[in-house]
């Protein structure tokens, strides 16, 4: 099977800092991948490279086996949707028009049944009740859900036969627990229809219950890739997250359940109050 998106040994350097160091990764159709790692591990940088917003200094990103840079931006936009961590919108658009922006790459053809797609996308994230509202009057969580609806519209507007991917940078930010679950479930449903989904997450247990595979990054390097149980180990918790944690099988779904017990700072950056 060809990977939808593949990073081959990508390195990103900003000044003296190496943000990513020879990272290899392949994302396949229909799979759900969570990217984990502490703050500054290079997660967002990695995502930016996958979207083509940043070009790595070394290595190359491939979409459908062809270098990302060789694909026209418009074609990619029909097949690949992205939710950024801090999405903004500087003017006060009505909610349906924000969602309809996802249909722009699909051209005038998609505008014909735009309203149907807009409504069904809003419905999928439980935000149809926001249809008559304006962007500035939404709470942070509501904005996040409308943004998610926009990316759903972007993917739904296109053909199902081409490879498609959804890339999410902390899609659960600002969301109540119920919408965190729902957002990931929506992404999961897209995956079951063949969309490759990659999400940066912070909640370890949420990641473990949702993802097929986890990519664990630390200081710009890949620490581990694999199923949640293989990645979320006591040892990785300690060395990567500086966390003394117990990992148990979850009583409900049986996946890894991370229960942090205390911090275990390395000597170099010990917390001043816990010598």
């Amino acid at each position: 099977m060809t990977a939808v998106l593949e990073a081959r040994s990508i390195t990103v350097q900003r000044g003296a800092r190496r943000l990513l160091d020879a990272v290899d990764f392949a994302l396949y159709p229909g799979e759900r991948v969570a990217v984990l790692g502490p703050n500054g591990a290079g997660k967002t940088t990695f995502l930016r490279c996958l979207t083509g917003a940043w070009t790595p200094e070394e290595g190359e990103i491939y979409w459908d086996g062809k270098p990302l840079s060789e694909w026209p931006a418009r074609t990619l936009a029909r097949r690949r949707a992205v939710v950024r961590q801090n999405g903004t919108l500087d003017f006060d658009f009505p909610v349906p028009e924000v969602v309809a922006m996802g249909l722009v790459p699909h051209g005038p053809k998609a505008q014909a049944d735009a309203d149907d797609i807009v409504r069904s996308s809003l419905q999928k994230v439980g935000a149809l009740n926001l249809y008559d509202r304006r962007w500035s009057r939404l709470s942070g969580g509501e904005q996040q859900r409308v943004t998610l609806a926009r990316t759903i519209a972007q993917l739904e507007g296109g053909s199902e036969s081409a490879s498609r991917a959804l890339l999410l940078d902390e899609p659960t930010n600002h969301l109540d627990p119920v919408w965190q679950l729902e957002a990931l479930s929506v992404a999961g449903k897209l995956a079951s229809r063949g969309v490759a989904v990659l999400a940066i997450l912070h909640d370890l247990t949420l990641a473990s219950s949702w993802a097929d595979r986890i990519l664990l990054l630390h200081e710009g390097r890949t620490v581990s890739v694999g199923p949640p149980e293989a990645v979320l180990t006591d040892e990785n918790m300690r060395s990567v997250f500086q966390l003394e944690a117990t990992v148990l099988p979850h009583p409900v779904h049986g996946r890894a359940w991370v229960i942090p017990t205390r911090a275990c700072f390395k000597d170099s950056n010990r917390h001043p109050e816990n010598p």
Partner: protein
Amino acid sequence: MSVVSSPTPSSPIRSLRRYTRILASLFCLLAIAVGTGIGALGISPSAQLSILAESIGLDSFATYHDPIQATVLKAIRLPRVVLGLLVGACLSVAGVLMQALFRNPLASPQLIGVSGGAALAAGVVIALLPGEVTSGTYGAWVLPAGAFLGALAVSLITLRVGHRGGTPDVVSLLLAGVAINALTGAGLGLLVFVADDAQLRSLTFWSLGSLGSATWTVVGTLAVATSLLLFFAWRNRLSFDLLLLGHEDAHHLGVPVATLQRRMVLVTAVAVGSAVAFTGIIGFVGLVVPHLCRLLVGPTHQHLIPLSALVGGSLLIFADTGARTIVAPAELPLGVLTTLLGAPFFLVLLARARKFA
């Protein structure tokens, strides 16, 4: 998936939109009728229609009108009104473009130095070029050509400096614009310092703005520039919406951000540079009109662009009619009038926005 369904009647803003374009068109026709009718020689709407009918060959529809009225209308009033329409539309739509580029409702073409560059170049032509250059056969075109080149040159410099790694960077563009505006202002000050009395007078007159230069040739030139701007704006209307999501999201939605931004600056410079070249600096239209129109139809460019063009054109015709009739037979400087009206109006808008926020 839990669904909170709600019946969604068409929101008031949508029904409003349906009527605004019709209302704006009527407003525009009214502006043209008023602008061509009022003046030292009054021309009633029925006389206007009669002259129109006669000049397009429908003599049977032509009722009685004074031949002098026909001459005044065709040679003086109409070119001036059409010029007002074109310049108003041009400045307003350029304002829409700059506000989309900077993702800020306070941006205007002046911000990237277009007007400043035109003013400085015009100042050089007025104060430094020998009189023979501007009095020959093509003399009347030297000043507009200089102003246009000045506008283009300065915006190219702004664009060049406001780059970061090959992509126009909004903050750098803004800061470069501020610095360049200060520089052109100082340059103009220097020219004022060296100019003699006559030159000083024409410098001042030029910087205050006027539609007094209107002839059909000027109208033709500006029709080309304004059409270019309107065509570009309409073609890219959906991309402008996406730019407001930020560069990265616009990129993710397939917009070639860097190319589009460069073209926005260049097209604005060409169009506004041409307008400023013939009319001098007419302030606040590019800032206030998009604002006003956004209040009426929301920020979506599909609706904002045509409405801004219509409203901007109409308002400028009304302002110019006021400028040439309020203190007749003298003429108020148009740029002063638009700023006198526009600035307080803008302050009211700001205060209202604060109240609703």
